[in-house]
């Protein structure tokens, strides 16, 4: 049997998450190739629609990485996303999708190792959960 290889959409903020991913690359750290990275200027820019669409098109998980609380380049973007993700989790649970498939986490521009760890842990978790039932 072929091993389940999840599809994960990852939204990274330009200033912290993406810089961390960049650093992880420069440091030649290993992390799973399942994440499809989308760079956004700020995690606050992500509309709940982007996340729902990702799931609707068959993503097994959505991972959002932004700046640490208080460090947002635009002051409050990451706080707002934290709220969006919380409410979305509650909505997804009502619709029958496991809310662990959606995660919001923090990594600063200097934390390449933390980024690799977040991604590895998330991919492991999704592999344990199996494919999303929304998958066509």
């Amino acid at each position: 049997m072929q091993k389940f290889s999840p599809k994960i959409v990852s939204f990274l903020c330009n200033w912290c998450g993406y810089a961390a991913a960049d650093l992880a690359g420069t440091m030649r750290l290993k992390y799973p190739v399942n994440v499809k990275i989308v760079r956004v200027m700020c995690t606050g820019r992500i509309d709940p629609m982007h996340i729902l669409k990702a799931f609707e098109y068959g993503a097994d998980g959505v991972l959002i990485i932004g700046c640490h609380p208080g460090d947002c380049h635009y002051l409050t973007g990451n706080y707002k996303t934290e709220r969006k993700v919380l409410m979305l989790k509650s909505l997804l649970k009502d619709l029958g999708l496991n809310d662990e498939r959606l995660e919001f986490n923090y990594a600063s521009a200097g934390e390449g190792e933390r980024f690799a760890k977040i991604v590895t842990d998330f991919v492991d978790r999704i592999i344990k959960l199996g494919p999303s039932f929304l998958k066509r």
Partner: protein
Amino acid sequence: MNSKFKLAIISLTSCAGCENAILNASPEILDFLGKDIEIVYAPIIMDSPPPSSVDIVIVTGAVRTEEDEKKLVEWRDKSKIFVSFGSCSCFGGIPGLANFFSSDTLLKYSYLKQLGTINVNNSPPSNGIPNLTDYIKPLRDYVKVDLYVPGCPPPNTLVVNLFKSIISGEKFTLSKKSVCDECPLNTGKEKVISKMRRWAFSKVDKDKCFLEQGFICLGPATRGGCGARCIKAGYPCRGCMGPAENCEDQAAKMISAISSATSIEEVSTEDLTKLLDLAGTFYRFTLPFSIFKRKIRRG
């Protein structure tokens, strides 16, 4: 045009509120009813044999049974202009919330478990009634729909505009604004929510934006055209007009609105996790029309 438009009103699974809304659109409707437009078939209002063809058919209610499916296709063939009337037929409406459950669960609940039900056979009735469909879908998933008139029930101005545009041959359009644009409580300033409140347990100030007071009001995500009638009556918008222009999904828009309007210092994230039944609240009228459509796991 000299001849009258022949109009049929067909009710699927509905509460008959939409038919009332049509008749209620007086006195303007008296200007053309009987003169330019003649009701030839409407089982809920009058007794007459079904005609072989009509010009306009107004369909109200959602498709819940196999009988509804057949009726729908039959009347699409018989009509020139097919109007999907009311939130149930446009988006699935309140009956659409039943998509959270399988039809088996629904039947068993209402025929066996519901309080006050005594069922001698101990099983849901099997003959003499049409079968339930698996899911509720909006009418546009079954047949080609020419005009949509949302609302629960559609507001008077929309009903009158619908008939006027059919008679004059002009294009019938819905409002492109949201309910907030029409709301008398909207001050135009940035909204800041400092505390989340629940309707039953808090004092309500009827002269201040409900969302700003912390009550859930679907105004930002809902299409206007109703003149904010619920808010004028002192009750927050429930979203019956469906998603606003350029908004695909009411829940996504509402989550976006609430998360950016809540004050970061005053409202904790815990307060937001305490909000109950987000899917039922945000998709109250539009669950079968939402982004996941029928792809929800059911109890």
